[in-house]
């Protein structure tokens, strides 16, 4: 059986590896779909909803990072409708917590912030919630600032799937969901954390950072973790 299949992306015929997702197929063909939770080497979960695409014959939008490419599929990855939905999804992420880019360690190096620029988000049309959220400073080397977390679960997955420590989980439901360390321990009190720093590097925002960095100074190194994740066989 041929290991390649053919699908259409925005009208163009594209070869795909059997078993790969729409997201991966597009990327391999040099077409970028925006996304904040998906990361090479980690199991896709479809948490951020920014990679939504239209598939001909399906009357709802599908997250491209979790949807396998199938022979003969016709996929739209860019359209006015998708742009509008992606903008909405991103604005909702910004409205949920306290994003104050001007004083954030990740200012200028943040995936959420740069995606806002790319999508043309100039303001948030939903009321900001201004939740009162904590900052965990208990780890000797790293900081967790819930104010900047978008619940993408990259940290959860990299720690469990690549480092094998499984320090992080998401607790709560819906708007009350929170990143939690080992059944509600402080990060500093964690029994499993090896201080490898992988979660910090893959976090797309300023929610996880190294200590000792000031505003704009936290630059993440995702590619090395991606490489390691692929080698250690997270998913593929």
């Amino acid at each position, binding site marked *: 059986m041929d290991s390649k299949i053919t699908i259409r992306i925005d009208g163009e015929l594209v070869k795909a590896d059997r078993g790969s997702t729409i997201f991966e197929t597009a990327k391999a063909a040099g077409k970028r779909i925006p996304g904040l939770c998906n990361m090479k080497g980690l199991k896709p979960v479809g948490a951020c909803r920014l990679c939504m695409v239209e598939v001909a014959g399906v009357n709802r939008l599908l997250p491209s990072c979790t949807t396998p490419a199938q022979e003969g599929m016709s996929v739209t990855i860019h359209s006015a409708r998708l742009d509008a939905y992606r903008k909405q999804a991103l604005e909702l992420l910004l409205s949920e917590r306290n994003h*104050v880019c*001007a004083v954030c360690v990740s*200012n200028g190096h943040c995936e959420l912030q740069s995606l806002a*620029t790319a999508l043309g988000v*100039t303001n948030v049309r939903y009321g900001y919630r*201004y939740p009162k959220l904590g900052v965990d400073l208990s780890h000797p080397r790293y900081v967790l600032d819930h104010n900047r977390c978008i619940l993408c679960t990259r940290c959860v997955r990299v720690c469990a799937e690549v480092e094998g420590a499984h320090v992080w989980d998401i607790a709560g439901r819906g708007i009350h969901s929170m990143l939690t360390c080992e059944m509600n321990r402080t990060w500093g009190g964690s029994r499993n954390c090896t201080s490898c720093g992988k979660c910090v590097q893959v976090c797309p925002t300023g929610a996880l950072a190294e200590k000792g960095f000031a505003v704009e100074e936290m630059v993440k190194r995702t590619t090395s973790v991606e490489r390691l994740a692929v080698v250690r066989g997270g998913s593929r």
Partner: protein
Amino acid sequence: MSGQAKVKLATAWLDGCSGCHMSLLDVDELLVALVERVELVYGPLVDAPEYPDAVDVALVEGAVSSVGDQKLAQTIRAKTRILISLGDCAVTSNVPSMRNTIPVQKLLERVYIEGADAAQAIPADGVPALLRHAVPLADVVKVDIHIPGCPPKPGAIAHVLTSLLDGKKPELTGLVKFG
């Protein structure tokens, strides 16, 4: 353009640090063109006691944090054709919003009583009351264009103003960033 009436431009400074006004002054050569085509009718840069009628464009810096900010924002909206929120404080509430998780009374006590060595008293005379939250301008009045950035890039301000002067709709995708 000569012979045509000048475009009436106003600026206003709500709860912000004046950095956005600094960015406005940083638009370099555009300032020269602006002088020819624009009349500055209100704001910290000119001496006008009252917000005038029939303003064409207003650039508003700062979050809406007090009853005073709220009133001025409403006045500006009522008398202005195109209202622009200038900079992150006006667009997102930004740094001023960092007080929003603390109730106003607690905040004032912390700053003016616990935090003061002498004259421990919460100021009441002549200062407008704080709102429960410092909010974006668009939470209080309809805003037509948003120029985010802390401070907003002079290039983005220049793009918006020249587009408007030329009767075009500004397109800010890729040109602006929060922070």
